[in-house]
C-alpha cells in the first residue's frame, strides 16, 4: 500500500487488558458519534466515503485468542484511503467478509469467523503480545513489531475470498437486518458503489439501534446504508428507505427516545410495492449498464 | 548297695507316721519366704562388696598421695584419722554378716544340726531319724568313729550318697594347715609331691618332746603322711557317688583293729563332704536335713572354729546330745564350753531356746543318773528353772519311735512356730549393722573430702578457672541464642511471606484441584458411571452425594497435611541453627555430630554427665519435641472452609438444613452431580488455600516461641548457671581439651583421691537408693 492509505488494528491480549491500536492510531475517532447506537465491543461498522476518500471502522471481530480471564479477544480494524484504489478494494473484501460473518453472531461470547481467522493467522499470539509489550514499554509507535502491523493487515485481507456475494444496490438509502441474506448482499453492493465507484455515502452496521434511530443516525447523510446487527436482529428485511423519515415518526429527534420492542421475526419479504420497485429499478440499471458496457457488479 | 528301704526301721503307714499337716505347711512357707528374700540379699551383699573394692581403691590412692612430698601435713593427718576408723573392717563384717544371712536365705532345707561330745549316741540318733545303718553312719564303742560329718537329706526320690573330694590344695588348707598351726610347724608342703616326700616329718624323738595333747595331734599328722598312698588317688576334687553300702570307709576312722595294722587306709582324709539322700521314716516334712556335726571337744585342730562357722551357715536348730551315763551325767565344763560355742553360732537369734535343744539320750540309762543329769542341767544351765534357757528333750536314741515322738516331733513343731521369727531376727540384725557401718563410712568419707577440699588449694584454682570458662560459654551462648531469637521474632512479626510455605500450600491446593479435575482420582467418566450405579441402587442421589462430599473433604484435608513436610523442614532448620550455636561454644563436646543428632547427643550427654544436668537436658529435650503439625496448628482454622463440603448445610437466613445437591437418578443427573461436587470441592480447596496463606506466619510464630522457650530454660532458668558448671566439670577435657591437663599433673594424686572418694560416695548412694526403693 502506498502513503495515500493507512490501516490500523486495535486489539488486547495477555499483556494488556485495554484495547489499544497496535502502533499508530487514527487521528480522529470518527466512529465515536455512533457510540450510542452500537456496542463497539460487538460487531459494528462505520464507513464514510466523501470526496473520493474513505474512512472505515470495523469492530467486534472475534479472535481465537483469549485474555487472562479466558475472555475471547477482539480486533478493531480501521482503514483510511482513496476510493477506486486497491486499498478500497481491500476494504471491500474485508467488509464483505465481516458482513458474511454476521450470520453466525449469537448472544454470549463471540466466536471467530472468517475475518477474525484471517487476522489471527497474520497476528499470532506471540506477535500480538510482543507488539503490546513494545507499546507498553516504549513511546515509539512504529518501531519493532509495530512496524509490521500494516503489512500484516494487508496480508490477512489478501487471504480472504474474492467472492463478495454482493447484490446490486441502486438506492440512496437502505436498511436491513443482518439475518437477511438479501440485506447483506445489498449492503455489500452498496459498499461496492462507494468504494469501487467512488460515490459518496455512509455504511453503518450497528447492534443497539433499531429503525427508530434511523433518522438520528443517518438523517443528515446524502446517502446511507444501515445494517442492524444486534443479536436479536434476526429481523430479516431489506428495505429502500424514504429518507428522511417524516416528522414525528418514532425515533424523531423531537420525541423522547422510546423504549423499543424488537419486531417479530419476519420472513424474507414477498412481493410488495417497494420490492417490485426495486426489481424494476434493478432491471433498468442492468439495461443502462448494458448500454454503457459495464459488467454487472455481481457477476 | 543297700538301699534306704532296707536300712530303714520297720516301715509304718504314712497315715501313722504323718503328723500335723500345719507343721509341714508352715515349714514350707518359711522356705518359700526365704527364697523371696534371696535376690535382695544377694544385691545387698554385692553392694557391700563393691563398697569394699571402692574403699580398697581409695586406700591405694591415699597411699599414693601420702607418698608425694607436696601433700600437706594437715591432709596427712586427715588420712590418719580416716584410717583409724577401720572402715574396711566394718565393711568386711557387714559382708560376712550378709553372707550368713544370704546363706540362710538360700537354703532350700530346714537343717537340724546334731552335736554332742563323743560317745553320747549322736550317730545312733542320726541312724534312728534317717533310718540308716552302720555302713552309712558308723557308731563305735569306746572310740570316736565319725571322721567326716555327713549331711543327710530327707528325700523320697533318691537313696544315695554323694562324696565331695578334696584337691590337694583344699586338703592342705582345710586339713593340714590347722595341724601345722597347732603344732607350731612351718607351712605344709605346697604340692602333693612335696608332701609325699615329707615322710620324715615329726620323728618319734620330736614327738616325745611334745605335750600330750599335741602329741596326739602330731601322731595324727604323721598318720596322714603315712597313709597318703591310701587316699592320694582321691585328692582329685569334684563329687563322686558312692553306694550307700560302701560309704563307711569314707566317713569313719579306722577301727581299733585297723589302727593296729602298720599301714592303715584313710580314704576319709580325702573327703570334704558327704551328702546322703534317703527317705526318713515317719517324717513327712519336705526339705528336712540333718547335719552331723563333728563331736565337740574333739581334738581335731581348728575344729571349734570350723564348728561355729558350720553352725552359723548351715543349721537352723541344734540338738545338743547328752547321755546320762556314769561319769557324764552332769553338766561338765566341756558342756559349758559347748553351749558357749553354740551361743556364738546363734548370732542374731535372740533366744537361746530357739536355737538349741538339749537332748538327753536316756535309753537304757539308770533313772538316778537321768535325774541327776536333768537336775544338773536345771541347776547349772537353766538357773534352777526348767526350760529357762534351754529345753531338754529326753528320748532313746536307739528307738526310732521314741526319737520321733519324743524328740523330732517337738523340734519340728518348734521350728514351724519359731523359724520365721528367727529369720526375721537375723535379717533385722544384719540390716541394722550394715546401716551403722554405712553411716560410719559416710562420715569418714565426708571428713576426708572436707580435708582434701580445705588443704588442696590448687584444685580450687582449677575450679575457678573452670567457673570463669563456663560462665563465658553461658554468656556467649546467651548472646548467640538471643540473636537467633530476635531473628525469629523479626520473621514472625514482619509479615514477609515464606515462599516455601506459600509453595507448600500452593502445591497442596494444586493437588486438590488436580484431583477434582481428574474425577476424584478415578477419572471423570468412571466416577459418573460409578455414581450412577450407586444412585440406581439407592434409588436416590442423597447417599452417594453425601459420601462423595465426605470423601472429598477428607481428601482435601489430607492434601493440606502434606504441608507438614515444610514444617518439618522449618523445625529441622531451627534445630540445625541451635546445634550450630551450641556446637560452636562447646568445642569438641559434640564433635562429629550436627543438627538433630548433635542435639540428641547433647541431651544424652547432659543426662549421663557425672554431675547430671536435668534442667538443661529438659530444655534440649523439649526443643527436640517441637513439632508443627497441620492438624493441630492450622486445621482448626481451615476446618470451617470445609464446612461447605457437607451435603446438608444450615441456611443462614432460615436456620434450617438445606440439601446442597439433589439430582435425578440419570446419566444427566450424575453428570450434574459431578459438576456440582467438583465446584464445591474447588471452592473449598480455594478457601482453604486462602485461609492457610492468611496465616502464613504460623510456623514463624511457633519457631520463635520454641526458640525463646529454649533460650529461657537453657540460659535464664534459676538452675541454669549451676548446671552449666556441672556440665563443665563433667566434660571438662572434651570441652577444653588440654587446658586443664597442666593443673591436673600437679593435682593428679589429690584428684585421684577425690575421684575415689566420689566413687565410694557413689557406692553409698547406690545402697541408699536401693534401700529407699
Amino acid at each position, binding site marked *: 500500500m502506498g502513503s495515500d492509505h493507512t490501516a490500523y488494528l486495535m486489539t*488486547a491480549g495477555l*499483556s494488556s*487488558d*485495554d*484495547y*489499544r*491500536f497496535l502502533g499508530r*492510531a*487514527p487521528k*480522529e*475517532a470518527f*466512529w*465515536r458519534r455512533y*457510540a*450510542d447506537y*452500537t*456496542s463497539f*465491543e460487538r460487531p459494528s461498522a462505520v464507513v464514510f466515503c466523501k470526496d473520493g476518500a474513505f474512512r472505515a471502522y470495523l469492530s467486534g471481530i472475534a479472535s481465537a485468542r483469549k485474555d*487472562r*480471564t*479466558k*475472555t*475471547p479477544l*477482539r480486533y478493531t480494524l480501521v482503514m483510511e484511503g482513496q476510493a477506486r484504489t486497491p486499498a478500497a478494494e481491500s476494504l471491500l473484501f474485508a467488509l464483505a467478509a465481516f458482513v458474511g460473518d454476521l450470520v453466525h453472531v*449469537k*448472544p*454470549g*461470547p463471540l466466536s471467530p469467523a472468517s475475518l477474525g481467522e484471517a487476522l489471527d493467522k497474520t497476528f499470532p499470539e506471540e506477535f500480538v503480545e510482543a507488539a503490546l509489550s513494545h507499546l*507498553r514499554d516504549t513511546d515509539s509507535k512504529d518501531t519493532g513489531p509495530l512496524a509490521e502491523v500494516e503489512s500484516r493487515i494487508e496480508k490477512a485481507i489478501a487471504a480472504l475470498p474474492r467472492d463478495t456475494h454482493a447484490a446490486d444496490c441502486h438506492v440512496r438509502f437502505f436498511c436491513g437486518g443482518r439475518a437477511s441474506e438479501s440485506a447483506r448482499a445489498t449492503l455489500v453492493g452498496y459498499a461496492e458503489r462507494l468504494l469501487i465507484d467512488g460515490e459518496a455515502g455512509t455504511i453503518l452496521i450497528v*447492534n*443497539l*439501534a*433499531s429503525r427508530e*434511530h434511523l433518522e438520528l443516525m443517518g438523517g443528515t447523510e446524502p446517502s446511507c446504508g444501515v445494517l442492524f446487527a*444486534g*443479536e*436479536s436482529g434476526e429481523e430479516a428485511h431489506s428495505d429502500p428507505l424514504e429518507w428522511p423519515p417524516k416528522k414525528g415518526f418514532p425515533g424523531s429527534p423531537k420525541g*423522547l*427516545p*422510546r*423504549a*423499543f420492542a424488537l419486531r417479530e421475526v419476519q420472513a424474507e419479504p414477498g412481493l410488495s410495492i417497494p420490492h417490485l420497485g426495486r426489481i424494476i429499478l434493478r432491471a433498468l440499471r442492468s439495461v443502462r449498464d448494458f448500454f454503457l458496457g459495464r459488467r454487472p457488479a455481481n457477476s | 548297695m543297700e538301699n534306704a528301704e532296707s536300712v530303714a526301721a520297720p516301715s509304718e503307714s504314712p497315715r501313722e507316721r504323718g503328723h500335723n499337716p500345719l507343721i509341714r505347711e508352715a515349714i514350707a512357707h518359711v522356705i518359700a519366704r526365704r527364697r523371696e528374700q534371696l535376690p535382695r540379699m544377694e544385691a545387698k551383699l554385692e553392694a557391700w562388696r563393691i563398697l569394699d573394692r571402692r574403699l580398697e581403691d581409695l586406700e591405694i590412692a591415699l597411699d599414693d598421695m601420702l607418698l608425694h612430698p607436696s601433700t600437706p601435713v594437715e591432709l596427712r593427718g586427715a588420712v590418719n584419722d580416716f584410717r583409724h576408723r577401720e572402715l574396711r573392717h566394718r565393711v568386711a563384717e557387714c559382708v560376712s554378716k550378709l553372707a550368713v544371712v544370704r546363706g540362710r536365705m538360700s537354703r532350700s532345707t530346714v537343717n537340724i544340726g546334731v552335736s554332742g561330745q563323743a560317745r553320747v549316741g549322736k550317730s545312733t540318733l542320726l541312724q534312728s531319724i534317717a533310718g540308716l545303718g552302720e555302713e552309712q553312719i558308723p557308731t563305735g564303742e569306746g572310740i570316736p568313729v565319725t571322721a567326716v560329718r555327713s549331711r543327710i537329706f530327707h528325700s523320697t526320690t533318691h537313696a544315695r550318697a554323694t562324696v565331695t573330694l578334696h584337691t590337694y590344695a583344699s586338703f592342705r588348707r582345710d586339713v593340714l594347715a590347722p595341724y601345722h598351726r597347732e603344732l607350731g610347724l612351718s607351712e605344709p608342703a605346697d604340692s602333693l609331691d612335696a608332701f609325699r616326700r615329707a615322710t620324715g616329718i615329726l620323728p618319734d624323738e620330736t614327738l616325745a618332746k611334745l605335750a600330750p595333747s599335741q602329741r596326739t595331734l602330731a601322731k595324727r599328722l604323721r598318720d596322714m603322711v603315712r597313709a597318703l598312698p591310701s587316699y592320694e588317688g582321691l585328692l582329685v576334687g569334684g563329687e563322686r557317688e558312692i553306694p550307700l553300702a560302701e560309704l563307711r570307709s569314707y566317713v569313719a576312722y579306722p577301727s581299733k583293729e585297723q589302727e593296729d595294722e602298720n599301714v592303715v587306709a584313710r580314704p576319709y582324709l580325702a573327703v570334704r563332704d558327704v551328702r546322703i539322700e534317703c527317705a526318713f521314716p515317719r517324717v513327712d516334712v519336705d526339705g528336712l536335713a540333718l547335719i552331723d556335726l563333728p563331736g565337740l571337744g574333739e581334738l581335731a585342730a581348728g575344729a571349734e572354729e570350723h564348728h561355729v562357722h558350720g553352725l552359723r551357715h548351715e543349721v537352723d536348730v541344734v540338738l545338743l546330745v547328752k547321755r546320762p551315763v556314769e561319769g557324764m551325767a552332769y553338766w561338765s565344763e566341756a558342756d559349758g564350753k559347748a553351749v558357749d560355742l553354740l551361743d556364738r553360732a546363734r548370732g542374731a537369734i535372740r533366744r537361746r531356746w530357739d536355737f538349741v535343744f538339749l537332748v538327753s539320750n536316756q535309753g537304757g540309762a539308770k533313772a538316778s543318773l537321768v535325774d541327776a543329769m536333768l537336775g544338773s542341767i536345771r541347776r547349772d544351765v537353766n538357773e534352777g528353772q526348767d526350760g529357762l534357757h534351754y529345753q531338754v528333750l529326753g528320748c532313746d536314741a536307739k528307738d526310732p519311735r521314741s526319737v520321733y515322738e519324743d524328740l523330732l516331733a517337738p523340734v519340728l513343731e518348734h521350728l514351724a512356730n519359731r523359724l520365721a521369727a528367727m529369720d526375721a531376727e537375723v535379717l533385722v540384725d544384719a540390716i541394722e549393722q550394715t546401716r551403722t557401718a554405712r553411716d560410719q563410712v559416710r562420715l569418714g568419707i565426708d571428713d576426708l573430702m572436707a580435708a582434701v577440699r580445705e588443704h588442696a588449694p590448687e584444685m580450687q584454682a582449677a575450679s575457678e578457672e573452670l567457673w570463669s570458662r563456663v560462665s563465658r560459654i553461658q554468656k556467649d551462648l546467651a548472646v548467640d541464642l538471643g540473636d537467633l531469637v530476635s531473628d525469629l521474632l523479626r520473621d514472625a512479626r514482619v*509479615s514477609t*511471606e515464606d515462599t516455601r510455605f506459600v509453595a507448600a500450600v500452593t502445591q497442596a491446593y494444586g493437588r486438590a*484441584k488436580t484431583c477434582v479435575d481428574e474425577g476424584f482420582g478415578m477419572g471423570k467418566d468412571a466416577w459418573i458411571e460409578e455414581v450412577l450405579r450407586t444412585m440406581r441402587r439407592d434409588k436416590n442421589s442423597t447417599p452417594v452425594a453425601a459420601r462423595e462430599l465426605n470423601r472429598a473433604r477428607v481428601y482435601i484435608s489430607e492434601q493440606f497435611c502434606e504441608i507438614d513436610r515444610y514444617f518439618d523442614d522449618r523445625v529441622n532448620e531451627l534445630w540445625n541453627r541451635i546445634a550450630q550455636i551450641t556446637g560452636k561454644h562447646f568445642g569438641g563436646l559434640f564433635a562429629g555430630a550436627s543438627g538433630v543428632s548433635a542435639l540428641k547427643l547433647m541431651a544424652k550427654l547432659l543426662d549421663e554427665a557425672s554431675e547430671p544436668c536435668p534442667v538443661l537436658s529438659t530444655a534440649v529435650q523439649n526443643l527436640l519435641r517441637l513439632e508443627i503439625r497441620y492438624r493441630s496448628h492450622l486445621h482448626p482454622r481451615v476446618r470451617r472452609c470445609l464446612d*461447605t463440603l457437607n451435603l446438608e*448445610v444450615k441456611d*443462614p*437466613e432460615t436456620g434450617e438444613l438445606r440439601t446442597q445437591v439433589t439430582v435425578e437418578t440419570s446419566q444427566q443427573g450424575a453428570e*450434574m452431580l459431578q459438576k456440582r461436587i467438583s465446584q*464445591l470441592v*474447588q*471452592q473449598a*480447596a*480455594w478457601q482453604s*488455600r*486462602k485461609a492457610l*496463606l*492468611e496465616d*502464613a506466619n504460623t510456623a514463624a510464630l511457633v519457631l520463635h516461641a520454641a526458640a525463646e522457650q529454649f533460650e529461657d530454660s537453657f540460659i535464664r532458668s534459676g538452675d541454669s548457671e549451676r548446671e552449666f558448671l556441672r556440665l563443665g566439670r563433667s566434660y571438662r577435657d572434651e570441652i577444653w581439651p588440654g587446658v586443664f591437663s597442666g593443673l591436673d599433673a600437679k593435682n593428679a594424686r589429690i584428684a585421684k583421691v577425690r575421684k575415689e572418694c566420689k566413687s565410694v560416695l557413689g557406692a553409698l548412694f547406690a545402697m541408699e537408693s536401693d534401700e529407699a526403693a
Partner: protein
Amino acid sequence: MSDEGNIEFKVAILGPRRVGKTSLITALLSESQKLLAGTPVSIASVGTTEARIAQHKNDLRGSLLAGEFHPGALGGTQAPFTFTLSMSVNKTAIVWAILDYPGGWLDARTRGSENDAEWERCKRWISESPVLLLPVDASVLMEATLKREKITAQHLLQIGQTEEMAREWAKGRAVAKQPGLVVIAPVKCESYFNDNGGLVDKNEELYRRVVQAYKPVIDAVRQEMSGTTGLSIQYHPVDTFGCVELQSAEWRAPDGSSEQAPLLFSATYIVRPPGQPNPKGAGGILVSICRQIVEAQSGKGRGFLSELWAWLTGGKRRLRQAVEDLSAVPLGNRVRML
C-alpha cells in the same frame, strides 16, 4: 435538561476496567423497578440503553445456563456509552444518565491519543455529576492473600487513577459549592454475604478491605471538600448477579515476568441453582441519590440539585412524591456511611 418534561441527572462512574459496570447498572435498573412497583412512577432504560442492557442480559443468561459463570465473557468496554434510565410518570421524567467509558481511559498511557477529545467530554461529565459511583471488584480485593496478590489488586482497582479523578471531581464540587455523593459500590459481593443465598458471611472483612483500599480516595475527596457541606460518602455492596458465587481464583504470574510484575487475576464462579439472577444492594444507590435531591431542597444554592428540586416542585407533583418516597426507603444493614 430537556426542554420538554424531562430533566437529565448525570451520574459519573469511576470504575476500573472489567469491574462490571454494565452489570451494576443492570442491577440498579432491575432493583429500581422493584422499588417503584405498584407506584404510578416507572423506570425503564431508554434508547439504545435498552438494547445494551438486553445484550448484557443475553450474555449473562447464556453464561448462567451453562452452569458456570465467567464474568470476563461479558467483555470490556471499548468506547464510552451513556446509559439512560428514565424515571417517568405521564410525560415527565428524570433521566438518569450514567456515563460509562473504558476503564483503561483513567490512565493516559492506555487511553490512546485518538480518545483525548472524548476523554475531555467524559471529564466534563464527571465534574458535572453530583454523584460519583465507584464500583469495586469485590473478588479482586477479597481473593488477594499474598503480598504480591494484594499489590496486584491495588493495580487492578486502579486506585491511584481513581484517587486522582475523585480529587478532580471533589475540587469541582467544592469550587461550585455543590454537595456531592460518593458511592463506593463493591460489586460481585454475593460470595461474601449470606443474606442472598450464600452460606458464608464475610461482609465485615469485605468492608474492612474496601475501606482500607479506598482510603486514599476517601481522604482525597474529604480533603478537597473539607470546606463544603453536603458531602456524603457511602458504602453500598451489591450482589450484581445474586446467583453466582466464587469457586476459585487464580493469581498467575505472566510468563517470563519479573518478581515485581503484577499478576494476572482470574476467577471462576459457581452458579447457584436455579441460576436466576437476583441482584441485591443496588437499589440503595437510587435511594441515596433521591435523598441527596430531597436534602438539597433546604439548600439555598443555585446549583443543579436546587434547580432540580425547583423543577420537581413546579407541578411535577407525582414525580416529586416518588423521589420523596424513594428517599424514605430504609437503606438496609448492608449500607454504611463512611
